[in-house]
């Protein structure tokens, strides 16, 4: 065989080999680009008998939204004694567009809250965190979803809520955890939260709610181990327009992971009532 002919044959064989190898690699998922066969390497989305996605499980947010839902850099703690443990880490924030659209008066109040946060932050006093803050505290929460109402049990301060999945029911009184009414939009769980009492903050730096704050949450399962969470927040008394937060909840996968108890009232009594203690 001539050299030319051999070269062409070798080249063709190599090309064919590479082609076949390439196909093989792509099929086996070693490819760097997102593969159409991604579900093959992750668990299927859990579903109820009627096909609805099932959110039941133990979930937790990562990141530092509870410190500050807006983008922020690292800061020292107001108490130097806590050293690095009490210092605030940086974060990208969870606010779509990075800015909370406060009215000028509300922006001033948020600033005042920040200046007085060690007296005012309800999280310091073990007050129930309200919605949406309960979801992205540095504590897990358990969702129990069956065929009727859905329970959210938050570890922090034993806060919890029942999401009414039947006919919409107005709250009769304003509460710390609000009144949650849920419904399905396809595979998205939509929860309308109203009748909040306005005493909760969104974070530790003074971003606050009022009793007019209305939150609409949207939960979806892109896969078995993540919840994509979005909340649209509206309050005409302090914002110039509605705004959105979005984040991810991660399924707690440790074998022994379970909801524990963080009844923090006992940890804050000295803080709250200390000066009323009888002096020895």
């Amino acid at each position, binding site marked *: 065989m001539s050299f030319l002919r051999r070269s062409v044959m070798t080249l063709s064989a190599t090309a064919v080999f590479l082609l076949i190898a390439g196909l093989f690699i792509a099929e086996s998922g070693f490819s760097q680009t997102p593969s159409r066969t991604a579900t093959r390497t992750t668990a299927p989305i859990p579903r*109820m*008998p*009627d096909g609805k996605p*099932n959110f*039941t499980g133990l979930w937790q947010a990562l990141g530092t939204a509870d410190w500050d839902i807006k983008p922020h850099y690292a800061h020292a703690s107001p108490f130097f004694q806590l050293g690095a443990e009490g210092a605030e880490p940086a974060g990208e924030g969870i606010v779509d567009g990075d800015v909370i659209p406060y009215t000028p008066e509300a922006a001033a109040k948020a600033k005042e809250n920040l200046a007085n946060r060690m007296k005012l932050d309800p999280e310091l006093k*073990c*007050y*129930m965190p309200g919605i949406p803050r309960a979801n992205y505290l540095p504590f897990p929460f*358990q969702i*129990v*979803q*069956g*065929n*009727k*109402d*859905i*329970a959210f*049990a938050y570890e922090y*301060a*034993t*806060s*919890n809520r*029942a999401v009414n999945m039947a006919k919409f029911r107005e709250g*009769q*009184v304003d*509460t*710390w*955890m609000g009144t949650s009414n849920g419904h399905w939009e396809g595979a998205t769980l939509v929860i309308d939260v109203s009748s909040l009492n306005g*005493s909760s903050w969104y974070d530790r730096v003074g971003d606050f709610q009022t009793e007019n704050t209305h939150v609409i949450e949207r939960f979806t399962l892109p896969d078995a181990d993540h919840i994509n969470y979005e909340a649209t927040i509206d309050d005409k008394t302090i914002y110039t327009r509605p705004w959105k937060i979005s984040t991810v909840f991660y399924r707690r996968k440790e074998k*022994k992971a*379970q*909801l*524990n*108890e963080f*009844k923090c*009232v*006992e940890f804050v*009594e000295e803080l709250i*009532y200390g000066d*009323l*203690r*009888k002096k020895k």
Partner: protein
Amino acid sequence: MRSFRLTVMLMPAGLALLTAASALAQSAPHALPTAPKNWVQAKTPWGDPDIQGTWTSDDCIGAPMNRPANFGDRGYLTEQELSERMKRLEQQHEGDLKDTVDANQRVGTGPPGNWGERARRPCKQTSLVVDPPNGRTPELLPEAKTRPVPEGAGNNNPKADSWEDFSWYIRCISRGVTGSILPVIYGNGQQIIQAPGYVTILQEMVHEARVIPLDGRPHESSEVRSYMGDARGHWEGNTLVVETTNFLGGRTGIGLNGGGTPTSEALKLVERFTRTSPDEMKYEVTVDDPKTYTRPFKIAFPLTQETGYQNFEYACHEGNYAMFDSLSGARAKEKAAAAKAAAQSK
């Protein structure tokens, strides 16, 4: 418009129904709807017995924990006693509806009487303790008798050196497992929500959420302890059996609102929930604390579903002005007494 009602005629088979003007009214005492003949326990779509809904222990509000000695081993009221109790409930209801104050109304340091919740029908039991046969909690062990019991609600002049002198309920911390379901004068809501592999009970006071896994996993390490313990559930036929261990010791007791002698770390509770009709559930709990009581004992009472009944938030700690005022009042009294003593010694 006043609500009107039919006169009650007690019959051996049960109580006659009364009409209530509004589903949401604190209605006149009335019987539960009769269970349909051949009632069968429904199942959830994933095959567990369906015990979901908001239940209440209201019916046995006021029933004593310990049986009065004269009842001996008798656990239930006779028809005669039941009808007397029903009459009393109706009188109470009439009194509640009285829109003006009696001339000789006693004014006390407590809240308005007409704000409480009431049983809707007579509690059939002579006591909440159903075993041992005499219906009384067993003797305490010597080591338990000396455990301090913190101040409850009734004392006009409690020791109030600090919050620690008050009960875990008054501090808005917890009422413990039995204390969170035993019938008291308000806040008896128990909302049960099920999912594949879980039963959750949302208990109104003090906003507890018992998350009970059904997958047979072992209890947590004994190093992990809590007020509400670590629960594990399974089904025995249509009965939900829940075993709870890993309690903190020396906190709540077994009684109403978690009162009574604090139980120990060795406490184990086994509860059984059995739905017997669309509106009624049998609840019983076996209390076993070998470091507190001389023997295990059992408490039982019915839970019911009532039209329009729902849980409401009971935030407690967030609004606990009472704690401030109790402590501040005690300090003010001490200051006044000290000033008086100083003046007298001059």
